[in-house]
């Protein structure tokens, strides 16, 4: 059918015994932003790492199912091959190189690209166009920049690898609401102007669903719900469990119990 990124019923085990993903399937169509939502420990990061193949460095393994990117099986590749193939992960918690300057951080992102000096310079300029703040901080050590600037550095660094698809893990983590908004605006821009597809893991369901086209909700290593972003946003259960709102106002304890039951049913 010519899908773009598709994950088919994968199971992931850490350390040979800890079963974390129990049959996850999802699709990211080309040029779309897809949100992967869920609470702490649901398995969002694990899913992204399964795609980028960073899993093995943490003694995790895809033991069932398969992952296809542009109709090629990619679950046994190395992270280096994935990046060269156009899929790159921006890890949760930013992970900038603290002792390198912002610009050096960006330059390391081009490691896999055989680029001339001029091309490298052009790529840098493009990143600075999207993140003008980074240009100002280009010669500061990344470890001393603010959380928002680090998140921008991490995304900019990934852009330097010329990706078609970015796996973005919790970009909103620990950031003030305006900064989160600023970063998501840039994500949308990159998606529209550079045609980069995104798989976006977020706990911040509200914001993620405003920018995404499609969403999956993960719970305990399973997909419990999926749908168009606007449908999910207006879905009563999603509102209850993940957005913390309810049309009926504050919930009573009994209602909570009732929802717990429904939640189990959803799973």
């Amino acid at each position: 059918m010519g899908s773009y990124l598709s994950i088919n019923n994968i199971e992931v085990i850490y350390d040979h015994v800890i079963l974390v993903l129990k049959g996850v399937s999802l699709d990211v169509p080309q040029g779309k932003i897809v949100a992967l939502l869920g609470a702490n420990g649901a398995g969002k990061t694990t899913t992204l790492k399964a795609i980028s193949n960073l899993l093995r460095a943490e003694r995790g393994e895809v033991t069932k199912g398969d992952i296809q990117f542009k109709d090629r099986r990619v679950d046994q590749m190395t992270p280096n091959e994935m990046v060269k193939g156009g899929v790159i992960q921006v890890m949760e918690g930013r992970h900038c190189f603290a002792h390198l300057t912002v610009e050096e951080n960006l330059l390391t992102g081009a490691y896999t690209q055989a680029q001339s000096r001029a091309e490298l310079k052009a790529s840098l300029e493009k990143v600075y166009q999207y993140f003008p703040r980074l240009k100002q901080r280009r010669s500061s050590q990344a470890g001393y920049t603010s959380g928002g600037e680090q998140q921008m550095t991490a995304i900019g660094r990934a852009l330097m690898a010329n990706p078609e698809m970015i796996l973005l893990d919790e970009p909103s983590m620990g950031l003030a609401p305006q900064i989160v908004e600023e970063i998501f605006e840039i994500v949308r821009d990159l998606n529209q102007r550079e045609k980069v597809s995104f798989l976006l893991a977020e706990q911040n369901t509200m914001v993620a669903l405003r920018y995404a086209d499609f969403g999956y909700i993960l719970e305990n290593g399973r997909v419990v719900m999926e749908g168009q972003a606007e449908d999910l946003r207006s879905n009563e259960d999603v509102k209850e469990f993940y957005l913390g709102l309810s049309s009926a106002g504050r919930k009573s304890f009994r209602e909570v119990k009732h929802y717990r039951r429904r939640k189990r049913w959803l799973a």
Partner: protein
Amino acid sequence: MQFFFEVLIGGLLSGVMYSLVALGFVLIFKASGVFNFAQGAMVFFAALSLVGFMEHGAPLWLAFILAFVVMTLFGIATEKFVLRKMVNQPPIALFMATIGLSFFIDGFAPLLWGNEVRALDIGLVDEPIPWILDNWNMVISKFDLFAAGLALALVALLALFFQYTRIGRALRAVADDHQAALSIGIPLQHIWALVWAVAGFVALVAGMLWGSRNGVQFALTFTALKALPVLILGGFTSVPGAIVGGLIIGASEKLAEIYIPPVMAGWFGGNFGGIEGWFPYVMALLFLLVRPEGLFGEKHIDRV
């Protein structure tokens, strides 16, 4: 006073050699978090290979290149057959592996090249520089000066390499955060193999200089371990620390050798020679109590 400076300068010059060995440790430690106990043995192995090739009739430059090839292959093999198998093991296990490696080299190298003490002639004589002798009345060895110059040039070259090249940058990135480096497609294995090759090169230069001064022999392994106090002083992750630490250790051990024994003899009577052998370790111990992270221990940036 002239004599004092003579001892000081001699010490500083010999200290540069400690810096060189310490640098080998720092490179590997920074990039892979492995404390490579085998660095001393690598100095020995490199010097032995160099002499070995020269005995087979190769001129110095060719023997140097061949020895470098041997060290590079050794580095790649170590990465591939020892360290790669041990990824994700605790640091102490990796450290033990390098101790094993050290003993392996100490046994294997003589097997390959024979175990008698060899002289290594690189065409430099250990004699005073006449010009300094005439003008300042100080004995500064030509050999020491050349060795120090070579070591400094090598250090400067490495610094430039790390600062300004694509690979150098990748290497610093790996040193900062393995995971992140992996995530942007830097193949850790290549970088590690490269670091071992560079450490092998540094060991080769150190081995050549030391070997030609003291003869190529097993004791080189231990001389090279003088890099340990240098590391404690300079910090395990700091290139400038390795350099400054080497200078301090070199200078202070020579000064101690000259000036402490008379004082001690005055207090306790008897003979207090050979201070040079243990003074650096005592200094390192005292230093550990005061400043365990070393002079230049890299600051951990907490905001990340």
